[in-house]
Protein backbone atom coordinates (compact mmCIF):
# COMPACT_ATOMS: atom_id res chain seq x y z
CA UNK A 1 0.00 0.00 0.00
CA UNK A 2 1.32 3.41 -0.95
CA UNK A 3 1.86 5.77 1.95
CA UNK A 4 -1.02 8.18 2.17
CA UNK A 5 0.66 10.14 4.94
CA UNK A 6 4.10 11.49 5.70
CA UNK A 7 4.53 12.40 9.35
CA UNK A 8 7.61 10.77 10.84
CA UNK A 9 10.32 13.19 9.72
CA UNK A 10 8.81 16.31 11.20
CA UNK A 11 5.74 18.01 9.90
CA UNK A 12 4.67 21.50 8.89
CA UNK A 13 2.16 23.14 11.23
CA UNK A 14 -0.75 24.84 9.45
CA UNK A 15 -4.33 25.48 10.69
CA UNK A 16 -7.02 23.54 8.80
CA UNK A 17 -8.88 26.83 8.28
CA UNK A 18 -6.04 27.91 5.96
CA UNK A 19 -6.79 24.98 3.68
CA UNK A 20 -10.40 26.07 3.63
CA UNK A 21 -9.42 29.59 2.60
CA UNK A 22 -7.32 28.27 -0.29
CA UNK A 23 -10.00 25.82 -1.39
CA UNK A 24 -12.66 28.50 -1.32
CA UNK A 25 -10.70 30.83 -3.61
CA UNK A 26 -10.20 28.03 -6.11
CA UNK A 27 -13.86 26.95 -5.87
CA UNK A 28 -14.91 30.51 -6.65
CA UNK A 29 -12.63 30.56 -9.68
CA UNK A 30 -13.92 27.25 -10.99
CA UNK A 31 -17.58 28.24 -10.55
CA UNK A 32 -18.76 31.87 -10.35
CA UNK A 33 -21.94 30.69 -8.63
CA UNK A 34 -19.85 29.81 -5.57
CA UNK A 35 -20.32 32.72 -3.18
CA UNK A 36 -19.03 33.45 0.30
CA UNK A 37 -21.12 34.98 3.08
CA UNK A 38 -19.45 36.03 6.26
CA UNK A 39 -20.72 37.17 9.66
CA UNK A 40 -18.02 39.63 10.74
CA UNK A 41 -15.25 37.02 10.98
CA UNK A 42 -13.65 37.22 7.55
CA UNK A 43 -10.08 37.06 8.86
CA UNK A 44 -10.57 34.23 11.36
CA UNK A 45 -12.59 32.13 8.96
CA UNK A 46 -10.04 32.77 6.20
CA UNK A 47 -12.46 34.54 3.87
CA UNK A 48 -10.00 37.38 3.25
CA UNK A 49 -8.40 35.86 0.16
CA UNK A 50 -11.78 34.98 -1.34
CA UNK A 51 -12.97 38.52 -0.72
CA UNK A 52 -9.96 39.88 -2.63
CA UNK A 53 -10.08 37.34 -5.45
CA UNK A 54 -13.86 37.38 -5.98
CA UNK A 55 -15.32 40.63 -4.58
CA UNK A 56 -18.55 40.27 -6.58
CA UNK A 57 -19.11 36.83 -5.03
CA UNK A 58 -18.57 37.99 -1.45
CA UNK A 59 -21.29 39.16 0.95
CA UNK A 60 -20.81 40.55 4.45
CA UNK A 61 -23.82 40.61 6.76
CA UNK A 62 -22.45 41.40 10.20
CA UNK A 63 -23.00 39.54 13.45
CA UNK A 64 -26.15 37.64 12.45
CA UNK A 65 -25.68 33.89 12.34
CA UNK A 66 -29.34 32.94 11.92
CA UNK A 67 -29.49 35.37 9.01
CA UNK A 68 -26.35 33.78 7.62
CA UNK A 69 -28.11 30.44 7.18
CA UNK A 70 -31.52 31.76 6.15
CA UNK A 71 -30.16 34.20 3.59
CA UNK A 72 -27.86 31.52 2.18
CA UNK A 73 -30.92 29.32 1.77
CA UNK A 74 -32.55 32.03 -0.31
CA UNK A 75 -29.43 32.51 -2.42
CA UNK A 76 -29.13 28.76 -2.97
CA UNK A 77 -32.79 28.71 -4.07
CA UNK A 78 -31.92 30.98 -6.98
CA UNK A 79 -28.88 28.98 -8.06
CA UNK A 80 -26.00 30.12 -5.90
CA UNK A 81 -23.67 27.80 -4.00
CA UNK A 82 -23.13 29.68 -0.74
CA UNK A 83 -20.33 28.92 1.67
CA UNK A 84 -21.14 30.52 5.00
CA UNK A 85 -18.72 30.88 7.84
CA UNK A 86 -18.61 31.83 11.46
CA UNK A 87 -17.34 30.11 14.56
CA UNK A 88 -18.87 26.66 14.87
CA UNK A 89 -20.26 27.64 18.25
CA UNK A 90 -22.50 30.25 16.56
CA UNK A 91 -23.06 28.56 13.24
CA UNK A 92 -24.41 25.89 13.52
CA UNK A 93 -24.53 26.43 17.29
CA UNK A 94 -26.84 29.45 17.33
CA UNK A 95 -28.48 28.78 13.98
CA UNK A 96 -29.40 25.12 14.38
CA UNK A 97 -33.12 25.41 13.70
CA UNK A 98 -32.47 27.39 10.52
CA UNK A 99 -29.92 24.75 9.52
CA UNK A 100 -32.48 22.00 10.02
CA UNK A 101 -35.44 23.76 8.37
CA UNK A 102 -33.88 25.87 5.63
CA UNK A 103 -30.80 23.84 4.70
CA UNK A 104 -31.82 20.24 5.33
CA UNK A 105 -35.62 19.92 5.27
CA UNK A 106 -35.81 22.43 2.41
CA UNK A 107 -32.83 20.69 0.74
CA UNK A 108 -30.77 23.72 -0.25
CA UNK A 109 -27.19 23.61 -1.46
CA UNK A 110 -25.67 25.58 1.42
CA UNK A 111 -22.22 24.79 2.84
CA UNK A 112 -21.23 25.70 6.38
CA UNK A 113 -17.61 26.15 7.36
CA UNK A 114 -17.56 25.89 11.15
CA UNK A 115 -14.36 27.52 12.33
CA UNK A 116 -12.75 27.30 15.77
CA UNK A 117 -14.11 23.88 16.60
CA UNK A 118 -12.70 21.95 19.54
CA UNK A 119 -10.94 22.91 22.77
CA UNK A 120 -7.80 23.68 20.73
CA UNK A 121 -9.35 27.11 20.13
CA UNK A 122 -7.34 27.76 23.28
CA UNK A 123 -7.36 31.06 25.20
CA UNK A 124 -10.86 32.20 24.08
CA UNK A 125 -12.35 29.69 26.49
CA UNK A 126 -15.48 27.55 26.70
CA UNK A 127 -17.97 29.96 25.10
CA UNK A 128 -16.01 29.77 21.84
CA UNK A 129 -15.00 26.09 21.90
CA UNK A 130 -17.55 24.06 19.91
CA UNK A 131 -17.39 20.46 21.12
CA UNK A 132 -21.00 19.52 20.43
CA UNK A 133 -21.18 20.51 16.76
CA UNK A 134 -20.64 17.08 15.21
CA UNK A 135 -23.48 15.74 17.35
CA UNK A 136 -26.01 18.41 16.36
CA UNK A 137 -25.12 18.17 12.68
CA UNK A 138 -24.85 14.42 12.20
CA UNK A 139 -28.36 13.93 13.59
CA UNK A 140 -29.96 16.02 10.81
CA UNK A 141 -31.25 14.02 7.81
CA UNK A 142 -29.57 14.73 4.43
CA UNK A 143 -26.65 16.57 6.08
CA UNK A 144 -23.07 15.82 5.02
CA UNK A 145 -20.52 16.24 7.81
CA UNK A 146 -16.78 16.34 7.05
CA UNK A 147 -13.92 16.72 9.54
CA UNK A 148 -10.63 16.80 7.62
CA UNK A 149 -7.38 15.78 9.25
CA UNK A 150 -5.10 18.63 8.10
CA UNK A 151 -4.97 21.77 5.99
CA UNK A 152 -4.06 19.97 2.75
CA UNK A 153 -7.02 17.65 3.12
CA UNK A 154 -9.25 20.58 4.07
CA UNK A 155 -8.48 22.28 0.78
CA UNK A 156 -9.40 19.12 -1.13
CA UNK A 157 -12.56 18.73 0.94
CA UNK A 158 -13.59 22.32 0.25
CA UNK A 159 -13.18 21.82 -3.49
CA UNK A 160 -15.00 18.48 -3.43
CA UNK A 161 -17.89 19.78 -1.32
CA UNK A 162 -18.32 22.84 -3.55
CA UNK A 163 -19.01 20.48 -6.44
CA UNK A 164 -21.20 18.06 -4.53
CA UNK A 165 -24.89 18.90 -4.16
CA UNK A 166 -26.45 19.17 -0.74
CA UNK A 167 -26.45 20.73 2.72
CA UNK A 168 -23.01 20.35 4.20
CA UNK A 169 -20.98 20.98 7.34
CA UNK A 170 -17.19 21.27 7.17
CA UNK A 171 -15.47 21.42 10.56
CA UNK A 172 -12.36 23.56 10.95
CA UNK A 173 -9.80 24.14 13.70
CA UNK A 174 -8.23 27.43 14.74
CA UNK A 175 -4.78 26.33 15.88
CA UNK A 176 -1.84 25.27 13.77
CA UNK A 177 -1.87 21.50 13.41
CA UNK A 178 0.39 18.93 11.75
CA UNK A 179 0.22 18.53 7.98
CA UNK A 180 0.34 14.77 7.43
CA UNK A 181 -1.18 14.26 4.00
CA UNK A 182 0.41 15.31 0.73
CA UNK A 183 -0.88 16.82 -2.50
CA UNK A 184 -1.03 13.26 -3.87
CA UNK A 185 -3.14 11.83 -1.04
CA UNK A 186 -6.58 11.14 -2.52
CA UNK A 187 -9.75 12.47 -0.93
CA UNK A 188 -13.30 11.34 -1.62
CA UNK A 189 -16.29 12.40 0.48
CA UNK A 190 -17.67 9.33 2.24
CA UNK A 191 -14.57 7.15 1.83
CA UNK A 192 -12.52 6.57 4.96
CA UNK A 193 -8.76 6.13 4.50
CA UNK A 194 -6.36 3.67 6.09
CA UNK A 195 -3.31 5.74 7.05
CA UNK A 196 -1.48 2.92 8.81
CA UNK A 197 -2.01 -0.81 8.60
CA UNK A 198 -2.21 -3.04 11.67
CA UNK A 199 -4.28 -5.98 12.86
CA UNK A 200 -4.48 -5.68 16.65
CA UNK A 201 -6.60 -2.58 17.31
CA UNK A 202 -8.22 -0.08 14.93
CA UNK A 203 -7.99 3.59 15.85
CA UNK A 204 -10.79 5.40 14.05
CA UNK A 205 -10.08 9.11 14.18
CA UNK A 206 -11.08 12.39 12.57
CA UNK A 207 -9.74 15.92 12.48
CA UNK A 208 -6.44 17.11 13.83
CA UNK A 209 -6.22 14.19 16.30
CA UNK A 210 -5.46 11.79 13.45
CA UNK A 211 -1.85 12.92 13.99
CA UNK A 212 -1.93 12.02 17.69
CA UNK A 213 -3.41 8.67 16.71
CA UNK A 214 -0.53 7.97 14.32
CA UNK A 215 1.99 8.91 17.00
CA UNK A 216 0.22 6.68 19.53
CA UNK A 217 0.32 3.80 17.03
CA UNK A 218 4.08 4.14 16.58
CA UNK A 219 4.57 4.20 20.34
CA UNK A 220 2.39 1.11 20.84
CA UNK A 221 4.33 -0.70 18.14
CA UNK A 222 7.65 0.13 19.83
CA UNK A 223 6.65 -0.47 23.43
CA UNK A 224 3.96 -3.14 23.32
CA UNK A 225 4.22 -4.77 19.94
CA UNK A 226 0.60 -3.76 19.35
CA UNK A 227 -0.01 -2.91 15.70
CA UNK A 228 -2.81 -0.43 15.11
CA UNK A 229 -4.77 0.29 11.95
CA UNK A 230 -5.32 4.03 11.67
CA UNK A 231 -8.56 4.93 9.91
CA UNK A 232 -8.93 8.58 8.90
CA UNK A 233 -12.70 8.73 9.22
CA UNK A 234 -13.06 12.24 7.79
CA UNK A 235 -16.66 11.89 6.67
CA UNK A 236 -18.81 11.56 9.77
CA UNK A 237 -21.92 11.56 7.62
CA UNK A 238 -22.52 9.63 5.44
CA UNK A 239 -20.05 7.42 7.29
CA UNK A 240 -18.11 4.75 5.41
CA UNK A 241 -19.82 1.79 7.07
CA UNK A 242 -17.81 -0.78 5.12
CA UNK A 243 -14.55 0.67 6.43
CA UNK A 244 -15.84 0.62 10.01
CA UNK A 245 -17.10 -2.96 9.75
CA UNK A 246 -13.81 -4.01 8.17
CA UNK A 247 -11.90 -2.38 11.04
CA UNK A 248 -14.03 -4.25 13.58
CA UNK A 249 -13.67 -7.54 11.75
CA UNK A 250 -9.95 -7.30 10.99
CA UNK A 251 -8.79 -5.87 14.34
CA UNK A 252 -11.43 -7.07 16.82
CA UNK A 253 -11.30 -3.84 18.87
CA UNK A 254 -11.67 -0.12 18.18
CA UNK A 255 -10.63 3.17 19.76
CA UNK A 256 -12.39 6.25 18.39
CA UNK A 257 -10.60 9.61 18.58
CA UNK A 258 -12.17 13.06 18.09
CA UNK A 259 -11.89 16.55 19.51
CA UNK A 260 -15.54 16.60 20.57
CA UNK A 261 -17.78 15.38 23.36
CA UNK A 262 -17.61 11.60 23.61
CA UNK A 263 -21.40 11.75 23.60
CA UNK A 264 -23.08 11.65 20.20
CA UNK A 265 -20.06 12.46 18.06
CA UNK A 266 -18.12 10.54 15.41
CA UNK A 267 -17.26 7.75 17.86
CA UNK A 268 -20.89 7.29 18.80
CA UNK A 269 -21.75 6.78 15.13
CA UNK A 270 -18.97 4.19 14.88
CA UNK A 271 -20.48 2.45 17.92
CA UNK A 272 -23.94 2.48 16.32
CA UNK A 273 -22.55 0.76 13.23
CA UNK A 274 -20.41 -1.72 15.13
CA UNK A 275 -23.20 -2.64 17.57
CA UNK A 276 -25.46 -3.54 14.67
CA UNK A 277 -23.05 -5.05 12.16
CA UNK A 278 -20.04 -6.50 13.98
CA UNK A 279 -19.90 -6.02 17.77
CA UNK A 280 -16.39 -5.59 19.21
CA UNK A 281 -15.06 -3.71 22.28
CA UNK A 282 -14.77 0.07 21.80
CA UNK A 283 -13.08 2.83 23.80
CA UNK A 284 -13.78 6.49 23.16
CA UNK A 285 -11.31 9.37 23.17
CA UNK A 286 -12.94 12.79 23.45
CA UNK A 287 -14.16 15.31 26.00
CA UNK A 288 -15.95 13.55 28.82
CA UNK A 289 -19.22 15.48 29.31
CA UNK A 290 -17.50 18.71 30.34
CA UNK A 291 -16.98 22.21 28.95
CA UNK A 292 -13.62 23.56 27.88
CA UNK A 293 -11.73 26.51 29.36
CA UNK A 294 -8.95 28.96 28.53
CA UNK A 295 -5.47 27.60 28.06
CA UNK A 296 -2.77 26.70 25.60
CA UNK A 297 -4.22 24.48 22.83
CA UNK A 298 -1.87 21.55 23.40
CA UNK A 299 -2.26 21.85 27.15
CA UNK A 300 -6.04 21.64 26.74
CA UNK A 301 -5.81 18.62 24.42
CA UNK A 302 -3.77 16.86 27.14
CA UNK A 303 -5.97 18.03 30.02
CA UNK A 304 -9.16 16.83 28.37
CA UNK A 305 -7.71 13.38 27.66
CA UNK A 306 -6.97 13.56 23.94
CA UNK A 307 -3.16 13.48 24.00
CA UNK A 308 -0.95 10.73 22.59
CA UNK A 309 -0.61 8.94 25.92
CA UNK A 310 -4.36 8.96 26.50
CA UNK A 311 -4.81 7.23 23.14
CA UNK A 312 -2.05 4.74 24.01
CA UNK A 313 -3.82 3.91 27.29
CA UNK A 314 -7.17 3.50 25.54
CA UNK A 315 -5.64 1.08 23.03
CA UNK A 316 -4.06 -0.98 25.80
CA UNK A 317 -7.38 -1.06 27.63
CA UNK A 318 -9.45 -2.10 24.63
CA UNK A 319 -6.85 -4.73 23.62
CA UNK A 320 -7.36 -6.39 27.01
CA UNK A 321 -11.12 -6.42 26.46
CA UNK A 322 -10.82 -8.46 23.27
CA UNK A 323 -12.30 -11.93 23.74
CA UNK A 324 -9.59 -14.55 24.19
Amino acid at each position, binding site marked *: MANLVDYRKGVAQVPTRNGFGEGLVESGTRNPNV*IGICADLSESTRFEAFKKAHP*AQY*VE*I*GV*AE*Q*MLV*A*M*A*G*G*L*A*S*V*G*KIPWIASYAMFNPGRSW*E*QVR*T*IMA*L*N*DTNVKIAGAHAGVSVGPDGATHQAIEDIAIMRVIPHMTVVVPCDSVQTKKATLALSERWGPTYLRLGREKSPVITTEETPFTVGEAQIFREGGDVAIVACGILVYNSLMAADKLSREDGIECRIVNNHTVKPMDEAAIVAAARDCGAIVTVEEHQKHAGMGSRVAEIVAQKYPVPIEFIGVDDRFGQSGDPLELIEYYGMGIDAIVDAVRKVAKRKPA
Partner: protein
Amino acid sequence: MPTLTPDNLRDLELKANDIRQGIIRSLHAAGSGHSAGPLDMSDVFAALYGTLMRHDPNRPDWPERDRLLLSCGHIAPVRYSAMANFGYFPVEELLTLRKFGSRLQGHPERVTLPSLESTSGPLGEGLAQGTGMALGAKMDGQDFHVWVVTSDAEHQCGLHWEAVMTAAKFKLDNLTCIIDRNFIQIDGSTEDVMPLEPLGDKYRSFNWEVLECDGNDMQAFVETAERARAVKGRPQVIVANTVPGKGVSYMEGDYTWHGKPPNTEQTEIALKELAQARERIVARG
Protein backbone atom coordinates in the same frame (compact mmCIF):
# COMPACT_ATOMS: atom_id res chain seq x y z
CA MET B 1 -49.56 52.40 -13.71
CA PRO B 2 -52.34 49.93 -14.56
CA THR B 3 -55.52 50.56 -12.62
CA LEU B 4 -58.02 47.83 -12.02
CA THR B 5 -61.07 47.99 -14.27
CA PRO B 6 -64.42 47.18 -12.65
CA ASP B 7 -64.23 43.77 -14.35
CA ASN B 8 -60.74 43.10 -13.01
CA LEU B 9 -61.86 44.10 -9.53
CA ARG B 10 -64.91 41.85 -9.66
CA ASP B 11 -62.86 38.89 -10.92
CA LEU B 12 -60.29 39.31 -8.15
CA GLU B 13 -62.98 39.57 -5.50
CA LEU B 14 -64.60 36.41 -6.85
CA LYS B 15 -61.22 34.67 -6.68
CA ALA B 16 -60.81 35.79 -3.09
CA ASN B 17 -64.24 34.34 -2.37
CA ASP B 18 -63.26 31.05 -4.04
CA ILE B 19 -60.08 31.01 -1.98
CA ARG B 20 -62.05 31.50 1.25
CA GLN B 21 -64.42 28.66 0.37
CA GLY B 22 -61.44 26.41 -0.34
CA ILE B 23 -59.94 27.34 3.03
CA ILE B 24 -63.11 26.46 4.91
CA ARG B 25 -63.55 23.15 3.08
CA SER B 26 -59.93 22.10 3.52
CA LEU B 27 -59.79 23.02 7.21
CA HIS B 28 -63.01 21.16 7.89
CA ALA B 29 -61.68 18.08 6.08
CA ALA B 30 -58.39 18.31 7.95
CA GLY B 31 -60.00 18.66 11.37
CA SER B 32 -57.16 20.89 12.54
CA GLY B 33 -55.33 23.99 11.40
CA HIS B 34 -55.59 27.78 11.43
CA SER B 35 -58.70 29.68 10.31
CA ALA B 36 -58.40 33.40 11.07
CA GLY B 37 -55.15 34.23 9.25
CA PRO B 38 -55.90 32.37 6.01
CA LEU B 39 -59.31 34.02 5.73
CA ASP B 40 -57.98 37.52 6.35
CA MET B 41 -55.20 37.09 3.75
CA SER B 42 -57.46 35.75 1.00
CA ASP B 43 -57.76 39.15 -0.69
CA VAL B 44 -53.98 39.62 -0.66
CA PHE B 45 -53.37 36.18 -2.18
CA ALA B 46 -56.03 36.73 -4.84
CA ALA B 47 -54.29 39.99 -5.74
CA LEU B 48 -50.82 38.42 -5.82
CA TYR B 49 -51.73 35.43 -7.99
CA GLY B 50 -54.44 37.29 -9.92
CA THR B 51 -52.62 40.43 -11.01
CA LEU B 52 -49.45 41.40 -9.15
CA MET B 53 -47.12 38.47 -9.70
CA ARG B 54 -45.35 37.31 -12.85
CA HIS B 55 -46.05 33.59 -12.76
CA ASP B 56 -47.31 30.68 -14.81
CA PRO B 57 -48.93 27.68 -13.12
CA ASN B 58 -47.88 25.54 -16.09
CA ARG B 59 -44.23 26.50 -15.61
CA PRO B 60 -43.65 26.49 -11.84
CA ASP B 61 -39.87 26.34 -12.41
CA TRP B 62 -39.79 29.33 -14.80
CA PRO B 63 -36.55 31.08 -13.74
CA GLU B 64 -38.00 34.56 -14.31
CA ARG B 65 -41.10 34.04 -12.16
CA ASP B 66 -41.70 36.30 -9.19
CA ARG B 67 -40.97 34.54 -5.92
CA LEU B 68 -43.68 34.43 -3.26
CA LEU B 69 -42.64 33.23 0.18
CA LEU B 70 -45.16 32.56 2.92
CA SER B 71 -43.15 33.22 6.05
CA CYS B 72 -45.99 32.55 8.48
CA GLY B 73 -46.38 28.97 7.31
CA HIS B 74 -49.28 28.25 9.63
CA ILE B 75 -51.64 30.14 7.30
CA ALA B 76 -50.77 27.65 4.54
CA PRO B 77 -54.46 26.94 3.72
CA VAL B 78 -54.74 30.35 2.03
CA ARG B 79 -51.73 29.66 -0.14
CA TYR B 80 -52.88 26.16 -1.02
CA SER B 81 -56.37 27.40 -1.86
CA ALA B 82 -54.98 30.27 -3.92
CA MET B 83 -52.66 27.94 -5.82
CA ALA B 84 -55.49 25.49 -6.51
CA ASN B 85 -57.82 28.28 -7.64
CA PHE B 86 -55.14 29.68 -9.95
CA GLY B 87 -54.42 26.35 -11.62
CA TYR B 88 -51.40 24.90 -9.81
CA PHE B 89 -53.29 21.74 -8.85
CA PRO B 90 -56.90 20.49 -8.76
CA VAL B 91 -59.17 22.18 -6.21
CA GLU B 92 -60.22 18.73 -4.93
CA GLU B 93 -56.67 18.19 -3.67
CA LEU B 94 -57.39 20.83 -1.00
CA LEU B 95 -59.32 18.14 0.88
CA THR B 96 -56.04 16.27 1.48
CA LEU B 97 -54.75 19.11 3.68
CA ARG B 98 -52.73 17.82 6.64
CA LYS B 99 -53.38 14.17 5.73
CA PHE B 100 -50.80 11.40 5.43
CA GLY B 101 -49.04 11.40 2.06
CA SER B 102 -50.48 14.78 0.99
CA ARG B 103 -48.44 17.44 -0.76
CA LEU B 104 -50.38 19.90 1.39
CA GLN B 105 -48.43 19.46 4.61
CA GLY B 106 -49.60 21.12 7.82
CA HIS B 107 -46.88 23.67 7.27
CA PRO B 108 -45.56 24.27 3.72
CA GLU B 109 -42.80 21.99 2.45
CA ARG B 110 -41.13 23.03 -0.76
CA VAL B 111 -39.59 19.63 -1.42
CA THR B 112 -43.06 18.06 -1.73
CA LEU B 113 -44.55 21.04 -3.61
CA PRO B 114 -41.77 23.09 -5.28
CA SER B 115 -43.90 26.10 -6.22
CA LEU B 116 -44.11 26.95 -2.52
CA GLU B 117 -40.57 28.40 -2.99
CA SER B 118 -39.66 27.75 0.65
CA THR B 119 -40.31 25.48 3.59
CA SER B 120 -41.88 27.50 6.36
CA GLY B 121 -43.60 27.40 9.70
CA PRO B 122 -40.82 28.27 12.13
CA LEU B 123 -41.58 31.98 12.36
CA GLY B 124 -39.37 34.89 11.42
CA GLU B 125 -37.46 33.13 8.64
CA GLY B 126 -39.24 34.08 5.43
CA LEU B 127 -37.94 37.58 4.96
CA ALA B 128 -34.39 36.34 5.54
CA GLN B 129 -34.75 33.81 2.73
CA GLY B 130 -36.48 36.36 0.54
CA THR B 131 -33.57 38.71 1.13
CA GLY B 132 -31.24 36.01 -0.18
CA MET B 133 -33.39 35.48 -3.27
CA ALA B 134 -33.61 39.22 -3.95
CA LEU B 135 -29.85 39.62 -3.55
CA GLY B 136 -29.28 36.64 -5.85
CA ALA B 137 -31.47 38.30 -8.48
CA LYS B 138 -29.41 41.50 -8.21
CA MET B 139 -26.14 39.57 -8.49
CA ASP B 140 -27.31 37.93 -11.70
CA GLY B 141 -29.11 40.94 -13.19
CA GLN B 142 -32.49 39.19 -13.08
CA ASP B 143 -35.61 41.30 -12.76
CA PHE B 144 -38.02 39.06 -10.88
CA HIS B 145 -39.66 40.47 -7.76
CA VAL B 146 -39.68 38.79 -4.36
CA TRP B 147 -42.84 38.99 -2.25
CA VAL B 148 -42.79 37.83 1.35
CA VAL B 149 -46.00 37.44 3.34
CA THR B 150 -45.45 37.73 7.09
CA SER B 151 -47.63 37.71 10.16
CA ASP B 152 -47.54 40.64 12.54
CA ALA B 153 -46.63 38.46 15.53
CA GLU B 154 -43.54 37.05 13.82
CA HIS B 155 -42.13 40.56 14.06
CA GLN B 156 -41.36 39.51 17.62
CA CYS B 157 -38.61 37.22 16.23
CA GLY B 158 -35.06 38.56 16.18
CA LEU B 159 -34.12 36.94 12.88
CA HIS B 160 -36.83 38.92 11.06
CA TRP B 161 -35.10 42.16 12.04
CA GLU B 162 -31.71 40.82 10.97
CA ALA B 163 -33.33 40.45 7.56
CA VAL B 164 -34.86 43.94 7.68
CA MET B 165 -31.39 45.37 8.36
CA THR B 166 -29.72 43.29 5.64
CA ALA B 167 -32.29 44.07 2.92
CA ALA B 168 -31.81 47.78 3.59
CA LYS B 169 -28.01 47.46 3.43
CA PHE B 170 -28.23 45.95 -0.04
CA LYS B 171 -30.98 48.36 -1.18
CA LEU B 172 -33.15 45.46 -2.31
CA ASP B 173 -35.90 47.33 -4.13
CA ASN B 174 -36.95 44.02 -5.69
CA LEU B 175 -38.22 42.88 -2.29
CA THR B 176 -41.65 43.60 -0.80
CA CYS B 177 -42.70 42.45 2.65
CA ILE B 178 -46.44 42.25 3.29
CA ILE B 179 -47.57 42.23 6.92
CA ASP B 180 -50.85 40.58 7.83
CA ARG B 181 -51.65 43.19 10.49
CA ASN B 182 -54.58 41.50 12.21
CA PHE B 183 -53.40 42.22 15.78
CA ILE B 184 -53.92 38.64 16.96
CA GLN B 185 -51.66 35.81 17.97
CA ILE B 186 -52.21 32.54 19.83
CA ASP B 187 -52.10 34.05 23.31
CA GLY B 188 -54.21 37.13 22.52
CA SER B 189 -53.68 40.63 21.14
CA THR B 190 -50.22 41.36 19.76
CA GLU B 191 -50.19 44.59 21.74
CA ASP B 192 -50.75 42.68 25.00
CA VAL B 193 -48.43 39.76 24.29
CA MET B 194 -45.51 41.88 23.00
CA PRO B 195 -46.34 45.31 21.61
CA LEU B 196 -45.31 45.92 17.99
CA GLU B 197 -46.38 49.53 17.56
CA PRO B 198 -45.25 51.81 16.10
CA LEU B 199 -44.61 49.09 13.53
CA GLY B 200 -44.31 51.28 10.43
CA ASP B 201 -41.89 53.61 12.20
CA LYS B 202 -39.66 50.69 13.06
CA TYR B 203 -39.30 49.92 9.35
CA ARG B 204 -38.81 53.61 8.50
CA SER B 205 -35.93 53.77 10.94
CA PHE B 206 -34.37 50.80 9.12
CA ASN B 207 -34.56 52.74 5.80
CA TRP B 208 -37.47 50.86 4.30
CA GLU B 209 -40.29 52.39 2.28
CA VAL B 210 -43.45 51.99 4.37
CA LEU B 211 -46.94 51.76 2.86
CA GLU B 212 -50.17 50.99 4.64
CA CYS B 213 -53.64 49.99 3.46
CA ASP B 214 -56.76 48.01 4.19
CA GLY B 215 -55.69 44.46 3.38
CA ASN B 216 -59.27 43.42 2.84
CA ASP B 217 -59.98 46.14 0.27
CA MET B 218 -58.95 44.68 -3.09
CA GLN B 219 -58.68 47.97 -4.92
CA ALA B 220 -56.68 49.58 -2.12
CA PHE B 221 -54.31 46.66 -1.73
CA VAL B 222 -53.57 46.27 -5.44
CA GLU B 223 -52.87 49.99 -5.81
CA THR B 224 -50.65 50.01 -2.73
CA ALA B 225 -48.70 46.94 -3.89
CA GLU B 226 -48.16 48.46 -7.33
CA ARG B 227 -46.84 51.63 -5.72
CA ALA B 228 -44.55 49.52 -3.55
CA ARG B 229 -43.16 47.57 -6.47
CA ALA B 230 -42.34 50.80 -8.31
CA VAL B 231 -40.13 52.10 -5.47
CA LYS B 232 -36.44 52.29 -6.38
CA GLY B 233 -33.43 52.03 -4.12
CA ARG B 234 -34.97 50.46 -1.03
CA PRO B 235 -37.09 47.52 0.07
CA GLN B 236 -40.76 48.10 0.79
CA VAL B 237 -43.16 46.96 3.45
CA ILE B 238 -46.94 47.01 3.17
CA VAL B 239 -48.77 47.08 6.47
CA ALA B 240 -51.97 45.37 5.35
CA ASN B 241 -54.58 45.98 8.02
CA THR B 242 -56.85 42.98 8.07
CA VAL B 243 -59.77 41.63 10.06
CA PRO B 244 -58.96 38.16 11.40
CA GLY B 245 -61.43 35.60 10.10
CA LYS B 246 -62.60 38.04 7.39
CA GLY B 247 -65.65 36.79 5.49
CA VAL B 248 -67.08 34.50 8.17
CA SER B 249 -69.21 36.48 10.61
CA TYR B 250 -68.66 34.41 13.72
CA MET B 251 -64.88 34.36 13.27
CA GLU B 252 -64.27 38.01 12.45
CA GLY B 253 -62.18 39.76 15.08
CA ASP B 254 -62.09 36.76 17.45
CA TYR B 255 -58.53 35.71 18.30
CA THR B 256 -59.70 32.28 19.50
CA TRP B 257 -60.07 31.35 15.80
CA HIS B 258 -56.31 31.73 15.29
CA GLY B 259 -55.54 28.04 15.55
CA LYS B 260 -58.70 25.94 15.17
CA PRO B 261 -60.88 24.74 12.26
CA PRO B 262 -64.67 25.01 11.94
CA ASN B 263 -66.80 21.98 12.85
CA THR B 264 -69.43 20.64 10.44
CA GLU B 265 -72.19 23.01 11.51
CA GLN B 266 -69.88 26.00 11.53
CA THR B 267 -68.60 24.97 8.10
CA GLU B 268 -72.10 25.01 6.67
CA ILE B 269 -72.75 28.48 8.06
CA ALA B 270 -69.43 29.76 6.73
CA LEU B 271 -69.99 28.35 3.24
CA LYS B 272 -73.51 29.78 3.16
CA GLU B 273 -72.24 33.22 4.12
CA LEU B 274 -69.51 33.03 1.49
CA ALA B 275 -72.03 31.93 -1.17
CA GLN B 276 -74.18 34.93 -0.32
CA ALA B 277 -71.16 37.23 -0.51
CA ARG B 278 -70.39 35.78 -3.91
CA GLU B 279 -73.90 36.50 -5.13
CA ARG B 280 -73.54 40.10 -4.00
CA ILE B 281 -70.31 40.50 -5.99
CA VAL B 282 -71.92 39.01 -9.11
CA ALA B 283 -75.08 41.11 -8.69
CA ARG B 284 -72.96 44.25 -8.43
CA GLY B 285 -71.83 43.51 -11.99
